[in-house]
């Protein structure tokens, strides 16, 4: 029992001594902190990884107004309004409420043209919720949705036909 007693004292002393040596050696290491807003080597947006999930952006010239993203959003933060125009169907609004957005990325997956996607920019905190809504169609303007060129569609159809024919051809000899 007495040997345990003195062993405890010895152990406490030795472990404290070693611990102090470790913490003091850590004090002379270079801090790894990146001082965020103003002391970074480049702007923080540039430092972010290319595919990082921050704000959503829609490339309006290639948006087809298919409403797939609106339907995919689990919390309904995307709101697309379409109107009938003499020239056809037009978008009069494409709003994404980034205050609601939970950055799940479900909207980017069904997009047929890849128009809606994440950008690395994230420093857009603001003092009111209204400012958190990003509007991709300026108010009062109307955007004509992108139409996938007919030629491509024909090619697709042709290739589909060819495939079907090939299959039929493959099937024939057996019959």
């Amino acid at each position: 029992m007495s040997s345990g007693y003195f062993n405890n004292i010895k152990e406490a002393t030795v472990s404290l001594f070693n611990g102090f040596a470790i913490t003091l050696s850590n004090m002379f290491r270079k801090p790894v902190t990146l001082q965020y807003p103003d002391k970074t080597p480049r702007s923080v947006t540039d430092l972010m990884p290319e595919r990082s999930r921050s704000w959503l952006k829609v490339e309006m010239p290639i948006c087809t107004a298919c409403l797939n993203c609106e339907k995919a959003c689990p919390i309904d933060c995307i709101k697309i309004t379409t109107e009938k125009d003499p020239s056809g169907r037009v978008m009069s609004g494409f709003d994404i409420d980034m205050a609601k957005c939970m950055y799940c990325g479900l909207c980017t997956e069904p997009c047929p043209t890849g128009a809606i996607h994440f950008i690395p920019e994230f420093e857009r905190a603001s003092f009111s919720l209204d400012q958190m809504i990003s509007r991709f169609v300026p108010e009062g303007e109307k955007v004509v949705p992108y139409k996938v060129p007919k030629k491509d569609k024909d090619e697709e159809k042709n290739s589909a036909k060819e495939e079907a024919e090939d299959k039929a051809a493959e099937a024939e000899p057996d019959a």
Partner: protein
Amino acid sequence: MENFAIHIHESYLYGLPLSVVNLIVMFGAAFVVLLGFVAPFAGLLSFIERRIAARIQCRIGPNRVGPQGLLQFLADGVKSLFKEDLIPKVADKPLFIIAPYLVFLGMFTSFVVLPFSSQWIVADLNVGILYLFATAAITVVGLVMAGWGSGSKWSMLGGMRSAAQIISYEIPTGLAALTAILLAGSLSLQEIIAAQGPHPWQWYFFDNPFTFIAFFILFVALVAEGNRAPFDLPEAETELVSGYNTEYSGMRFLFFFFAEWAHLYVLGAILTTLFLGGWQVPESLLASVGAESIAARILELVFFQLKIYVLVFLVVQLRWTVPRVRMDQMMDMCWKYLVPIGFFCVAGVAIWMMLFPDGVSFVKYLLIAFSSAMVLYYFYKVYRNFKDSRAELELNPFV
């Protein structure tokens, strides 16, 4: 102090009775000391602690408010001032309100007897060291009050723990201090310092093996008394949210932390006074600036502060070195280790004084050599640890 009051009375306020003038001067002095010395010191210490902690954890720490973040504590203080002062519905209101001030009082009245130089001391009480321990006990009352008055289980548990802890650790504190008191033959802090000398072999730390051990006992016991990590059981965040100060907010909350950091300073001052020669400056150095000049007093103050800061640094480092002990381990440590060893040291010093009334210089030099060797070995270990981690060296503290 009294002469100053009489001087004020005779020259400016001769219309008032002397006792009233005395009171005004006393309040004035307390005000000046609190605002001009203690508050900035506690604040600065919080800054230093945060910076050291940050560097140990590979961070930078506060560095935005003022040059290198030096004014961070002012920003924190102003923020706390403007915060809402919440009082829980189930709280025992008078106790809840008065508790932080008692904690504050307990810590800050100890500054009265701290000897900053051979002449700069508010009151050189002939029971100075007893007074220090007595005021530390007021803190317990405050902590228990805060714990009980909050009307919350966590606070209550924190308060109970602090009572158990501080009262237990008063005993090893007293025993370890007793060794220095025995050697000096006085309870007055100034006389204890005067009995030592400026050189290490004149300090009580190296006087004999028993005081050498007593120093470490006092160190551990004072750390425990100040509720500092690794003995911060009363405010154990992982178990008790924040212990006795869980329900506090705003300025009242700040008072608890004020007291904690002030205690850090008092801890350093007690150890320096009892074992490390206090404000003693080598006479050759003192003579070069004139022994009676104000420069000599400032030199003494600087020596006193330097020793305190080394100890404060160790306490801060200890916080980031050792994890929190368990309640039973803490009690074991006090009653099974510190108290018996403390008694052993007191008896040892008494016998040593009887056998060698003039001290043994051989033992003193041996102890100094041993300590120096340990310090050298410590720095060697630090160097080795650093080399092994293959980190980039950064000696600039102002990154």
